[in-house]
């Protein structure tokens, strides 16, 4: 089963999908790192909490938006997988 031949290069559509899956894997790592940034602000201005709130919640919203975008384009879903990529399938 394992020695089945796998193509070295992928067509454009599958290539895109793989990179989207990569992005989905990296998203929590990147998010986790960015969430640590406020730790470097210690001893900052007196209203540190307000700034941190804006930063953390902004980043949070961004993560949600990115996750929503990726979830539509990740392979495997009936809607996201098929309808998003219809133009390519015509060939």
């Amino acid at each position, binding site marked *: *089963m*394992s020695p089945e031949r796998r193509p070295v290069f992928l067509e454009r559509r599958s290539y895109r999908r793989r990179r989207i*899956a990569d992005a*989905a*894997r990296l*998203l*929590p*790592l990147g*998010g*986790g790192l960015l*969430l*640590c940034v*406020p*730790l470097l*602000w*210690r001893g*900052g201005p*007196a*209203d*540190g*909490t*307000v*700034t*941190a*709130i804006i930063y*953390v*919640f902004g980043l*949070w*919203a961004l*993560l*949600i*938006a*990115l*996750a*929503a975008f990726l*979830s539509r384009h*990740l392979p*495997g*879903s*009936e809607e*996201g997988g098929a309808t998003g990529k219809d133009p390519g399938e015509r060939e």
Partner: protein
Amino acid sequence: MTVLNILVLVCLAYVVLLFAVAFGADRAARRGHLRWLRSRLVYTLSLSIYCTAWTFYGAVGFAARSGLEFVTIYLGPTLVMVGWWWTLRRLVLVGRTQRITSIADLISSRYGKSNLLAVLVTILAVVGTTPYIALQLQSVTLSFAAVAAFAEPGAAAAPLSEMKSTALWVAAGLALFTILFGTRNLDANERHHGVVMAIALEAVVKLFALLAVGVFVVWWLAGGIGATAERIAASEISQFEVSGGRWVGLTMLSAMAFLCLPRMFQVMVVENEDEDHLRTASWAFPAYLLLMSLFVIPIAAVGLERMPAGSNPDLFVLTLPLAEGQGGLAILSFLGGFSSATSMVIVAAIALSTMVSNHIVMPIWLHYSGGAATVSGDVRQVALMARRLSIIGVLFLGYVYFRVSGGGEALAAIGLIAFVGVAQFLPALMGGLFWRGATRSGAIAGLCAGALIWLYCLFLPSFGPAVLMSEALHAAGPWGIDWLRPHALFGTEGMDPVLHALLWSLLANTGAFVIVSLLVFPQPLERLQGAQFVNVFDHSGTPGGWSGDMAQSEDLLIMAQRIMGAQEAQAMFSEAAVRQGVSGYLPEPSPDFLQELERALAGSVGAATAHAMVAQIVGGASVSVRDLMAVADETAQIMEYSSQLEAKSQELARTARQLRQANEKLTQLSVQKDSFLSQVSHELRTPMTSIRAFSEILRDTDDLSPEEQTKYAAIIHDETVRLTRLLDDLLDLSVLENGQVNLNIQSGTLEDLLDRAVRAAGGETDRFAIRRARSEERVDLSTDLDRLAQVFINLVTNARKYCDADPAVLTIRVGRAGDQLTVDFSDNGSGIAADEQAVIFEKFARVGQNKAGGAGLGLAICREIMLRLGGDIAYLPGQKGAAFRVSLPQVAPGASVAPEQSLAES
């Protein structure tokens, strides 16, 4: 007093609403309206049981004490959900393909279906969750007391005994709800639609409540966003001074707990309907968490500013609206907290009870009751009862913990302590999903090491100094060894206790897990399961672990009936038989079927028990060469070849067995045909002889008295009647077989028909009793009633004639299988031998060489009639005596025009 009364009323109304929603959802599910229940939205909302009362009330208190740090509790799950492609997708897929019932089941199933491991996980889960349930009870009673204190400012704070009785009532109500809707069905893979729906509703209520309080605080009390920011900047928590260790550590801890908490596992994996729902939840659930925490800091800041010093910040969400005279808002907020507490307790109780009953109670019960086959469905009853008792037990433990701990500050800290406890599952869980080298011994070693350190460093000290651990032990360590002090292992002085315990327990856990896994050699079943879990995306169609040549299908059916209930088991077996192309109810015990059966049983009693039960019947679980091939796909071609040979030879053996069966059947038929011919000749000859003899007497004897003449004529007449009846039967059969029969469709009830059949067959006598359940029989039929009655009469007469028990009891049971009505006739005799079961429906077949000489046509005619009526009749194996199942559609094919016809005729 009135406010309190209103509160109680509102609470009761809310509970009634929850019951109604759960009941409605269950009913809709049973009727097949599943679209709404299975939606992504409901799945996402059900995940919100992560937000318990501890987060609903406690987040504000947490924020008031340490600022933005509270948000880490939500950031961890957010990162896990956003990273669903890594772990959750795999977890959910494994859970669905292996029919996993709980996290203990998953871990035990991965490591060779080891029950020891399941027991360990279960115990740790119970120890970790009980205080958490106590915490929920505490939060409900505290919030109740807070409202009461506001309602009667003069009176002293509610006495403790009153609080305890509140907690008792809440616990009892929750137990009732959970038992009603959580143990309706045994198979964990049949989802608890009612519970999930109620939880989704509660999720909306708590979010709405928190947002309402937040909007009130920001735009009403503080005067807009800008003004709120100024107030935060002016408050005690303006300085952002979060320790890096706690920030990162708590984020990681909450992420781990999110994956490992039994209740999260229940809603996320067990109740999951479709992997695709994760796709939506991956962003929608983080959005839910964001909204839940959006107003926490503003509420904390405004609360700190407005509320009198010394008031409990944990209750700001409730006391702020109360202090501002907003009674309605306060009640809404109370309901939010109530929702958070109840939904957590319900799901946690379901998850724990499943684990306790499947991994502790059932194995013990099976061990002591042995393999003795008793009534079908008895195991199912025991399992359901065990689950109900476990629910009561878990809630009672939570209540006892609440009373013993006195509901003080110690309890508030338990949330994070419980998180660390369940995080001990993580190495075994993740190792099992991603690393094929993980072994059972490794998992056991890791779990034990981690759990012990957690108990020693965090859980036992959490009861306070000198309660469970002596003061001296605390200060100087055991035997005076300085670097074994519970809060400073290896001299790590000054660390946050939670982080300290998390660090050391997980280090020890992972270390032991990895090292032991590297050292030991796994058993074949472990390797097989490991490959299936790790490569879940590659081969979803997994190889079976059984070679069932000597397995007795009938024994398997008896066992399955005990666990799944008679109807479900029979449906599953006959479906498999149809798929294999075998007639009757018993499929071939092929490896695929055995695997399927084991999975189905695992859905009810857990993987380990199901495996043990199948092994009991089939013999030792054998891992075939083909299965090992899947494990070691790097092995050489030659093994592939030999595995193919093995598969081929097994297939050949099976085919040979089938051929032998067919051959036997043919030989038997031919013998029967011969014997029938001689029988018919004999039957024809006997009356013929007497007819001839008596007609000769009549012809040749002159001086016969009139009496003698009448007597001889009567004998001749009787004999001809007998001949005619035999010929009628033969004719009837051939007409039926050729399909030339016209059905006379009428309407009537099954009850009347059975009455008629029983009467015609001679009714009940001292030695022959008939048991019926009349309420089931009130079914309207539209079919050829006369023909159907003929079938019933035949079956009743047969039971009367052939049942050898004394007294003979015939049980008639009516049921449903799909859109067919089933009527089972089972007696308590010795039944029909297996080799004869195959031919009883053939023409000329007669069981044994028995006394009452029918021609052996009755059952053959019955079968032809049933086929004409669009149904069937079959022998039902696995009952105590002889049993026949008649299945028929309620409306016979071609009966749609029946009403007009019968009207026209009348």
